[in-house]
């Protein structure tokens, strides 16, 4: 028999491995079981300082923790750098650019609340800021308003303009409204240019107003530093407002009911229009405060606030950064402000660069620079799943998409092995086999029958058929075990068997039927 061993070993090509899922880089912190439930929280609240999750690692057989949301850490680094770098560098140019950046970033954050969270495509945000700036500046000139009061004045002015603009928003379709708000800037611009009582000087700008940086040190390094720190505080306030509105109740309400499903959410009791209006008004008031800050910082209100150039530039910032995420607004603003102000000597070429970046961002990305990662992963997943669906012949046990999420990989292999075994056994079962079992359920069996019966015996207890003796040697029934302690087995049918061999065969038949139907 062993003389046949001279044939060559069969070399089978390993089937080509297809990659599934993606690698995730997680910083794992091994932790002693003692510390499993300890976490640091902000005082007097239930929010964790750093969002850490824990789980069991079946490979190292230990508990580990990892940071599940790394974004706050990145923000912290970014904010520290943003505060430190301009203060340390200290040159005139950098400090002015940095201050401008903080003002523009704050405007964009509030604008994103309107466009992203409330879903209102309004191009009048800069006009709101402008009106508030003009109001605050005018009041310090003509009514000698002390500078701390500029901010509430600005807020009120912004709120009023917001109310006026919000009225048509309800009645009008998105595109109409967008074009209409474009006209608000133009109306304000023409009015500021022509109206005498404002007292505007050349080119419609109002100057000589009050401000929070003392006039004598305004152009010195110290004055500029103070101005920048104030701007940084404004940016922090804007970020906090964005976080509070977008991340808390109002924002969640709005995101839960997208524009298309407005009717659905209204019928569920979410007052969608009211929430939208609330966000719009809050943002308008905030824009007013920013306008007052602008007037206080520059001690003037410039007509460029109503011009389309600045509006387009701000729009480019949020498009490049990505509408819908605070990171996008801030980083987009940073990139464009640096290009615009630092390279101001290159003239038209720098605006051309901004326009090209904007075009690339809108043509190729779905959420600006910060949506890129999600977009790339979505695209990859979609392509792979389509290709896999086109290629797969195995109606598998575990969909490949699920595999990376099942932490214990041996489960996957177990299912695959089980499936292969069942296919093999299905081929073995035929009428002869069943007849053989009927003749002698217990006793010596052929190899095939033995294999089948061993497989049945190895199965999970839950749902296993078993013979119940109602009256020993006289009456038997089939029941199915539940597998849970304390839960009685359930009856299958009413048939009563008079001999135990009949009952055994009936159990065998049922198990064969279950095997075939899987």
């Amino acid at each position: 028999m062993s003389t046949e061993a001279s044939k060559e070993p069969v070399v089978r090509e390993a089937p080509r491995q297809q990659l599934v899922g993606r690698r995730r880089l997680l910083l794992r912190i091994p932790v002693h079981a003692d510390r499993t439930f300890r976490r640091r929280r902000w005082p007097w609240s239930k929010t964790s300082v750093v969002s850490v999750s824990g789980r069991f690692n079946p490979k190292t057989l230990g508990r580990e923790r990892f940071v599940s949301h790394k974004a706050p850490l990145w923000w912290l680094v970014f904010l520290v750098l943003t505060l430190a770098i301009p203060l340390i560098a200290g040159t005139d140019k950098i400090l002015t650019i940095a201050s401008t950046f903080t003002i523009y970033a704050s405007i964009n954050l509030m604008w994103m609340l309107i466009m992203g969270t409330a879903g209102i495509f309004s191009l009048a945000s800069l006009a709101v800021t402008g009106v508030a700036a003009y109001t605050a500046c005018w009041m310090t000139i003509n009514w000698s308003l002390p500078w701390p009061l500029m901010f509430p004045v600005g807020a009120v002015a912004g709120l009023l303009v917001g109310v006026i603009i919000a009225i048509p928003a309800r009645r009008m379709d998105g595109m109409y409204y967008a074009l209409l708000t474009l006209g608000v800037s133009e109306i304000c611009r023409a009015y500021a240019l022509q109206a005498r009582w404002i007292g505007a000087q050349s080119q419609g700008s109002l100057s000589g107003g009050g401000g929070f940086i003392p006039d004598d040190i305004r152009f010195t390094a110290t004055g500029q530093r103070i101005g920048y720190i104030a701007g940084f505080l404004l940016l922090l306030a804007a970020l906090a407002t964005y976080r509070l509105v977008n991340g808390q109740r109002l924002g969640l309400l709005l995101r839960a009911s997208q524009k298309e499903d407005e009717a659905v959410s209204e019928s569920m009791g979410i007052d969608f229009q009211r929430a939208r209006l609330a966000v719009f008004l809050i943002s308008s008031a905030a824009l007013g405060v920013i306008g007052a800050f602008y007037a206080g910082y520059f001690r003037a209100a410039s007509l460029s606030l109503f011009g389309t150039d600045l509006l387009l530039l701000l729009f480019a910032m949020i498009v490049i950064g990505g509408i819908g995420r605070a990171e996008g607004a801030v980083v987009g603003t940073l990139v464009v402000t640096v290009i615009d102000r630092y390279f101001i000597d290159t003239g038209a070429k720098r605006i051309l660069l901004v326009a090209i970046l904007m075009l690339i961002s809108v043509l190729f990305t779905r959420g600006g620079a910060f949506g890129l990662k999600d977009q790339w992963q979505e695209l990859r997943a979609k392509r792979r799943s389509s290709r896999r669906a086109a290629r797969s012949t195995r109606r598998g046990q575990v969909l490949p998409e699920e595999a990376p999420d099942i932490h214990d990989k041996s489960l996957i292999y177990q299912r695959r092995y089980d499936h292969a075994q069942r296919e093999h056994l299905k081929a073995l079962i035929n009428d002869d086999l069943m007849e053989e079992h009927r003749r002698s359920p217990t006793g010596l069996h052929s190899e095939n029958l033995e294999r089948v019966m061993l497989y049945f015996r190895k199965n999970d207890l839950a749902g296993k058929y078993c013979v119940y003796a109602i009256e020993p040697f006289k009456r038997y029934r089939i029941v199915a075990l539940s597998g849970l302690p304390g839960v009685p087995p359930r009856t299958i049918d009413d048939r009563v068997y008079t001999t135990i061999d009949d009952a055994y065969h009936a159990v065998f038949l049922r198990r064969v039927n279950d095997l075939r139907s899987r």
Partner: protein
Amino acid sequence: MTLLEIKGLSAGYGPLRVLHDLDMTLESGERVGLVGLNGHGKSTLLQAIVGLTGWQSGSILLDGNEIGGRRMHGAGRTTPKIVRKGVALAPQGDAIFPGLTVRQNLDSGAFSARAWRERRKRREGILEIFPPLAKLLDQSVGTLSGGERRMVSLGRAFMGDPRIFLVDEPSLGLAPIISRAVIEALGKIDIGDGAMIIAEQDLGLIHGRVDRMLGMHAGELKQDIGDALMVGHPEQAPTLASEIEL
């Protein structure tokens, strides 16, 4: 002569695969009925022939020229080209143009220059097949009833003088009398050396009006089930696809 030859066609939408390695041929001059339950792939097969599925692979040969083929995404990009080669589909939702009149809807089907020149003659031909449309020519399509809309959709597909005419569930949503009228009208259309595939759920409607019947189940095609129906009780041929054991 083989007009359409489909080999190994698989198609689906995203991660969902609907058709599994289909093979089919269509001879010129024949009418074929495609029966099966909803969700088993009848519409997907017709859409795959014109290129409206999410993705497809396999080959579709029209007169020996490849019109299908491997496509991973972009539903509908190749459809205009395939339609201009002579394949017309009257889809399930009618897909007619709500802002245009009946006359304009029919005229929009005449997409080639020659068809446009002959459009009046062709329109009259269609009005002979679907007489109720004659009074409605200048009415806006949005005001028509379901049956009239179905007729506009079928008429529009026929204005381009297609070689292969695909009809997806002509009786969907229609009252029995009207759907019978529609199917009878379909039977009157002269397909010449072209071919017609009618996908239907209601067997009784197309029984006897088609030359061949194919069954569709779980994305797989079973050929020539017509005989299977005749075995047993020919007088009581099952009227629903669900009653056939496929």
